[in-house]
């Protein structure tokens, strides 16, 4: 089941959704857009372990990871 993983102060928060459910998919897409608008970076990973940055919602991605915007330390 596709999962959206958001890094946060608890470690991470995960939201699972059924990609065949129109309403669930719409909610997931809205969540994606909201996080990206807040400066989060979205990334997906292939089965080979390669990581790709994405700018558009992909309902078929098994896992989409979001992390907050980067700042200089």
């Amino acid at each position, binding site marked *: 089941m596709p999962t959206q993983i958001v890094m946060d102060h608890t470690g991470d928060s995960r939201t699972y959704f059924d990609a065949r459910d129109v309403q669930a998919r719409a909610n997931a897409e809205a969540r994606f857009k909201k996080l990206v608008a807040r400066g989060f970076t979205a990334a997906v990973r292939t089965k080979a372990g390669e990581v790709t940055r994405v700018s558009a919602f992909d309902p078929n991605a098994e896992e989409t*990871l979001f*992390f907050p915007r980067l700042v*200089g330390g």
Partner: protein
Amino acid sequence: MLSLRRPAITGRLLAQSVRRFYERFSAENTRDARGLRLLREWLTPAQWQQFEALGYFEVVGCDTGKRYRIYRGRMTNVYEIDDLGCLREGWCFVPFGFLTAGDVMLAQKIALETSESAALAVANRFLPRRQRAQGDVSWN
């Protein structure tokens, strides 16, 4: 003579320390444990193996092809390395907010592998610590 043998001993102790650290946290459901589990899931097998053995893993920047070493920690833990594996320059950048070390290292990895220039644009540079440059790694 003693100083010549020291890096090997330190490396072994470090590897044991990393293993113990991971074993302790992997059984728990704390925020740090979750961060480490997420890191493990997203690192390549080779990167995770390197992290377990040495306390760091290496990534290749997507724009320049340069190699970076990411040490365990939350800040001042990313170093550009040369062809011989020596530390050249430190780059300090972190995701905003109070995240676990595992999350921070994962964000740094993804940033360098997918948007290296943007990550370095916000980073502050620093000189490598002498201990790390000599292979004696301390934990952040």
